[in-house]
């Protein structure tokens, strides 16, 4: 049983790469977590934290959604993580 801290993991691929969202009150950003290291995925906005990663496949492709620069609307995003 591993404790991954303040994180809401919504997806995991066959290489144990996990994606999700920080559950820390000061950071609502999307992250990839692998082997104990959390890497931020960034945002489509600028100044309002709010991006969610929901799934990662075995090619390392990540999808989710993010607030835009107007801090109101959200768009789907795709990204990738190194395998």
């Amino acid at each position: 049983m591993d404790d991954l801290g303040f994180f809401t993991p919504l997806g995991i691929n066959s290489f144990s790469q996990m994606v999700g969202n920080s559950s820390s009150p000061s950071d609502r950003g999307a992250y990839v977590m692998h082997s104990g290291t959390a890497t931020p995925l960034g945002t489509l906005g600028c100044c309002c934290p709010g991006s969610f990663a929901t799934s990662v496949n075995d090619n390392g492709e990540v999808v989710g959604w993010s607030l835009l620069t107007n801090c109101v609307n959200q768009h789907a995003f795709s990204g990738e993580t190194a395998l």
Partner: protein
Amino acid sequence: MKDLGTLAGDIDSQAIAVNANGQVVGLSGQINSQSFLWHTNAHGFLFTLDPNGTVISRVTLDALPGSSFSVPYSINNAGQVVGAAYVGAGFRYYDPSGQQSSRPARALLWDGLHRLHDLNSVIPSGSGWVLTEAWAINNAGQIVGTGINPSGQTHAFLVAPMPAPLLSLASSQPNGQFRFTLLGEPGRTYTIQASTNLVTWTTLTNFVSTTGTNQFADATASNLSQRFYRALSP
């Protein structure tokens, strides 16, 4: 886009996840079209699609006794499903990350035979954790989710309580045999089953794996255009 329909007698459904074999999990029941809240008669489903995308099987996933909603969030290629059971009226999917739900919850696992387990009862006892929501499961049987750790903090967890046996090194032999290797755990009992449609399964063999690695050959495969195999362990 194809309409997958609902469980019998329902009017609304939402698909939540799909695996590489065309098995889809989601919710079926009745939804409030204004608030998108499910009425408490919603049920988790597992639909199996054929290669054309037609639903050939509709299974109602058992709900945890006492829960209002038992929701499947993820399915792996072995057909293992994870999710969460909630108590209280009204459930809204579409934002599972929607910051910690304040309602009581319990993490769930439906195994490859659709049998329901409270995830808390299949992890080693004495862990000190209360697992509340299981968000995802990969093809190795690793599960990630949210729970309350022994210090009382709401944290993410990673656990592999029921490692899925792996079928690997598959090959067709010149004589028409289909051969593959089971990668499991030494000392465990395994059943190998086969199916042409992922719905009706026939047992081919039962054995105790002494080494954890066993080669298997299916001599009857040459008569079939496609056949699925699975390994079960009690």
